């Protein structure tokens, strides 16, 4: 494009738009710079490896480590993905292959709406509605059927209260299902009809078409969508803040309270009274930012690869 260089106003307009688009890059650099400089106190005191591997979180003794928070984040995210992925892929298969045409639009719309509901609504609903159900019915039931089974009963040991890792993971999974489902559906839809029809012509059943044609064809996109949901779940705050408790301990039971990085930030940021406390919280935010940035970048890489493959 050489045309715009000839005109003075064009030069100005292109300059303004360039600055506006560079603002995104500036924010990313700014966030990294500010978080590092704000957490420098904690970085100097605890170092990197020690901070990441220490289970201390003691504002009184001014000793802080991230491991309990990272553990909480990893376990809730992992558990919620385990629940969400099969459900989301099931929904995507239903919408693209099974459902009658007149249902496809409304169901797709419903999924989009579910994705638009803000996370605080999920969180509040979790606290008032889901948590009592979990605490009174589902968790005692899980305890009963796993009683005496080695390993499984440590997973469900403790008193079922409804405010715990399991409830938080369930809410988180309900939150990411629509997101994962809609990306999977979009990927499924990209499978050329001709390829599917050839499989049907060979006598394949519907499931065989899904399993052997649609899934292999769209696996890059689906995988990208799953990693994207993982990135979303890592940074989700309000959906889990209500029902996770705020417990800085590594527990083996899913019926115990825990703390994720986001929940710790939400609950303690405004209460941090000492410099080192606040600095450690900034350090936590930095860890979260780096974690989710890397995850999202990987997801984006897969999605770009998928896009390139389909457009060929």
């Amino acid at each position, binding site marked *: 494009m050489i045309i*715009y260089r000839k005109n003075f106003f064009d030069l100005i307009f292109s300059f303004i738009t360039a600055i506006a688009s560079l603002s995104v890059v500036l924010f*990313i650099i700014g966030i990294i710079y500010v978080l590092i400089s704000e957490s420098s106190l904690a970085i100097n005191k605890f170092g990197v490896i020690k901070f990441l591997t220490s289970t201390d979180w003691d504002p009184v003794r001014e000793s802080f480590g991230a491991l309990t928070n990272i553990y909480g984040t990893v376990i809730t995210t992992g558990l919620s993905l385990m629940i969400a992925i099969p459900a989301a892929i099931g929904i995507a298969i239903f919408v693209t292959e099974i459902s009658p045409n007149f249902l496809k639009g409304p169901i797709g719309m419903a999924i989009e709406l579910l994705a638009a*509901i803000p996370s*605080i609504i999920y969180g509040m609903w979790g606290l*008032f509605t889901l948590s009592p159900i979990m605490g009174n019915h589902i968790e005692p039931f899980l305890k009963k059927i796993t009683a005496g089974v080695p390993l499984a009963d440590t997973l469900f040991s403790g008193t079922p209260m409804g405010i715990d890792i399991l409830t938080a993971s369930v809410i988180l999974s309900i939150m990411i299902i629509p997101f994962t489902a809609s990306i999977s559906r979009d990927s499924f839809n990209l499978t050329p009809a001709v390829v599917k029809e050839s499989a049907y012509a060979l006598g394949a059943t519907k499931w065989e078409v899904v399993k052997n044609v649609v899934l292999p064809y769209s696996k890059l996109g689906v995988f990208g969508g799953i990693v*994207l949901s993982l990135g979303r779940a890592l940074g989700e*705050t309000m959906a889990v803040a209500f029902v996770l408790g705020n417990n800085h301990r590594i527990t083996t039971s899913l019926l115990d309270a825990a703390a994720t990085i*986001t929940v710790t930030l939400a609950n303690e940021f405004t209460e941090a009274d000492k410099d080192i406390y606040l600095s450690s919280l900034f350090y936590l935010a930095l860890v979260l930012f780096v974690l989710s940035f890397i995850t999202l970048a990987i997801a984006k890489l897969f999605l770009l690869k998928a896009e390139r493959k389909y457009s060929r």
Partner: protein
Amino acid sequence: MTREQMRKIESGIALTLSTLAAFVGLFWLFFILGDVLVHGMKALNPGLFINDPAPPGVEGGGLRNAFVGQLLITLCATLMGVPVGVLGGTFIAEYARGRKIARIISVLSDIMVSVPSIVIGTFIYAILVKPVGHFNGWSGAVALAIIMIPVVLRTTEDMLSLVSWTLREAAFALGAPYYKVIMQVVYRGAATGILTGILLSIARVAGETAPLLFTSFNNAFFTLNMKQPMSSLTVTIFQYAMGPYDNWHTQAWAAAFVITIFILLVTILGRLIIRWRYR
């Protein structure tokens, strides 16, 4: 049993499971929505919109401060975020079209869209709250604007790319400079799409809570002063739902009802416009 029958049964089982998954997913939608509607309707009354909060533990009172605060913060965020987003998208789709820088910014924006919003809250706290010494409404608006910019930027880019290149060439052939082509031809062609993107981004930030926790914080009193801590619906929901009073819980449901209805309506409107315009 023959092999054919086995395959048919396998197919039937798998498809039944998928259908089940779909209905379980939809079940949650109606469960959550229904719950918010039922509890919200019960809690809704005119006093909610015209009264300020009563002291903790006292019955009555409303959420006027939170409604007004939410409106102000979202409005300021929109006024800051939308121009930057639209202009940024213009650069990527027009001046830098096809260049490496456009791809990089586009990918980074996509990542920024999903970056944890609470991290943006801590970032704004460090640059806009700490230096001032107290929480303020402006910092909340800036935090929401930062979340908004990449969303608007990406939709603008997509919508501008949909305008066919020949349309621009026609304008160039008439001797128009590029900026005039963009403003009078490209923007007009993409206006509906860009507007939809803006609507959806407003829906997105209106429900954000985490970035407001350490920026605009909360204020039990009515204020229009953006330099002071400012109440918002979302933060109020968080505080009231976690609080010990039944009265607070009821009002939290009402606030949840209002915000959910607002976001759903805006989202549906956005989708309808897209469907009407691009099909």
